[in-house]
């Protein structure tokens, strides 16, 4: 049984039919990436999975359970965490407070403290800045904080929306290194990226989304070699 199964979901914004039967699957332990052009519906897909949007049709099954009956905050408790697009951290809270908010749903103080150490180990830069107010962090640090905060929910599945957006190449590499590390330590990841080359390099499998439907599915390596993908998303002729 797959960890996450998205079965033909249709999501609307009012009359706008944004997702027209998206189907995808994420196995335990995988990194799966979802690539596609601007407005293809990548963010919409992630927001539908996290419960912020409701599909009008189709099912989302997580660990064998249909998520339709859960509210967004309950879905977090089921083990799906989201790193939203555009580094949305709590700007007026310190790094520590942001991370504490991440652990909001958890009760076990001991485990939380351990995870805090773990997160600081993954992203040592945050430890140095733990007293700093979120809004004054650099863009890259904010992205790290958003990631760390999501990790503090101890998710089984981490949804990441364009973690590399707007970052310098060095930092992009650092972020992808972190993604791989997080994955190696046992968190399954569904990754949305414009930076298709990097994303496909780290992903086990990938999906290509175009105007609300999945048009291709393959392993990361295979997609990287696919001429259509190369032309449309990797900027190669």
């Amino acid at each position, binding site marked *: 049984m797959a960890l996450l199964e998205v079965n033909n979901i249709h999501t609307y914004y009012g009359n706008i039919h944004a997702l027209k039967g998206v189907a995808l699957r994420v196995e335990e332990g995988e990194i799966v990436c979802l690539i596609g052009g601007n407005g293809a519906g990548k963010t919409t897909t992630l927001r539908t999975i996290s419960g912020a949007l409701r599909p009008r049709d189709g099912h989302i099954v997580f660990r064998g359970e249909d998520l339709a009956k859960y509210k967004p*905050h309950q879905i*977090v408790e089921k083990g799906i965490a*989201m790193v939203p697009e555009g580094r949305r951290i*709590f700007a*007026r*809270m310190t790094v520590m407070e942001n991370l504490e908010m991440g652990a909001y749903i958890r009760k076990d103080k001991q485990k939380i403290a351990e995870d805090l150490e773990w997160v600081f180990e993954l992203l*040592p830069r945050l430890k140095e800045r733990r*007293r700093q107010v979120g*809004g004054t962090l650099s863009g890259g640090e904010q992205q790290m904080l958003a990631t760390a905060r999501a990790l503090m929910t101890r998710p089984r599945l981490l949804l990441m929306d364009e973690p590399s957006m707007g970052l310098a190449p060095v930092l992009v590499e650092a972020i992808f290194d*972190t993604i791989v590390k997080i994955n190696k330590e046992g968190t399954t990841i569904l990754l949305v990226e414009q930076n298709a080359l990097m994303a496909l390099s780290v992903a086990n499998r990938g999906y290509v989304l175009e105007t609300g439907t999945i048009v291709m599915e393959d392993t990361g390596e295979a997609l990287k070699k696919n001429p259509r993908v190369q032309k449309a998303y990797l900027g190669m002729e």
Partner: protein
Amino acid sequence: MQNQYTDWKQALRSGLLGGAITVLLSLIGIVTAFSNTYIVNKVISFGELLIVGPIAALSLVAIQKARARHPGLLILTAIISGLTSGLVILALAGLGQVINLRAMFLNASNDLYAIYAYKQALVPGLLLRLLVSGLVGALVAGFTLLPGRIKAAISQGLLYVILVGLMGRLIGTVLNTWGFVAILFKWMFVANSLSPIGAIFLFLLTGGLAYWRYGRPKTKQITDPKKQKLVRWGTLGGFGLLLIFLPNILGMWFSEILDNVGLFILMGLGLNIVVGFAGLLDLGYVAFYAIGAYTIGVLTSPELGFFNLTFWQAFPIALIMAFLAGVLLGLPILKMRGDYLAIVTLGFGEIIRILVLSDWLKPWLGGTQGIQRIQRPVVGIGEFSITLQSQQQLYYLILAGIVLVAFVAVRLRDSRLGRTWMALREDEDVAVAMGINHVATKLTAFAMGALFSGIGGTLFAAKIGSIYPSSFQFLVSINILSLIIVGGMGSIPGVFVGALALMGLPELMREFAEYRYLFYGAALVAMMLTKPEGLWPEARHRLEFHEEETPPPEESEAVPESA
């Protein structure tokens, strides 16, 4: 000489501006109105200060903008600025002789010109005015050339003389309640203003104090934790004692003001939870205040005669009603954000007011006639019980309410719930993505705020003993919101400071009669310009407005490049 030329131009411009301000104040009528309101008896009136003040201020600007550094040139600059202002005033007076300005400006009267001319014959008097204007410039310039320590002493001395002088009448009412102790101070005042001797004494005292304090560290750092604790408890105890004796120190009239300010503090603390902590813009906050007050009224007034409960029997019911109303209003609006929320809550506030006003509910709520003879709270038991009736007695009830509510507000702010509110305020979507139940969280904020407002309402009913729909206007909500903004959004001490500034200050300004709101408005604008984050902002907000003052992270050693 290019520099010098621009300096002259600047001086001329400052002078014109200073003169223009004086003329403006004159034409509004305040100069005439306050020409007999003395700051120092028979020496300088508030009206005169309004003429000289702008001239002095703008000469100061001229000096500060001047590029010349030579003292002589600076003095000359200031004199030019002062003389220019004087000429503007003269021009007004001259124009007034030629054409009838009164047709357009009611206050361009002969009285005004006489004030300009120091009540002398017009021509020599106005020449004297010109001379004085130049002299003011020269004095200001001289002042700026003094060493810092003396400057500090003079400015502080002047500030106190002006403030105390202006507050002369109020201080008089306070002194009247002091009995024989007042003799210690009475000699400083004559006819609601400072006596010349009193002014000199006050100037020397406050100025001397500034002189002595200049350059000294503000407070000695106490390192011994035991001593620190002692000092902390000492100040707290002293402050507590002061609060307890305040009505006795200040007398009846001030107690009434304190009570009003207190009620606003109480409600401010509640709305601060909703707006400041949780970021929900609630413009109908007065509704819960009305619900609290009306519940007490309906339950206790023998005039309506339904229940005839005592105040304390009705009190918990009123709180429950306010709380439930908070939940009730909370439910439909939880999905809304920002502007929509503001509009709907505003509507709710008006609905409550109109219901209370309606003929339909008149048999129960009294309609326009309101509810009279609301039971006053009784405290104590048996023979030792008293009915709280006077403003001074009610002060303690309100004080107790504030202490309780402030304590709860602090605890809430530092609690897990408080954090959750803050997260919701910062970014609702993300907060939900952290597993926060935003519906429940918003609802608690709303209900807590409503509860606090309800407490305010019950105390209000107890305080005035009769309530009318007109006490629950939309303006009350706006006032509470404003005091939170002035104090600093989300800051608990800010609520206190904001309420004092916004509700207390206008009372103190009664001195200014119908010009009260003019000065008050000016003070508010100045306040928001100099401290946009509020008078006592929450630490987090301060960061938002003064990004550059962000404390550096504690470890500042070289940071490794990769994460």
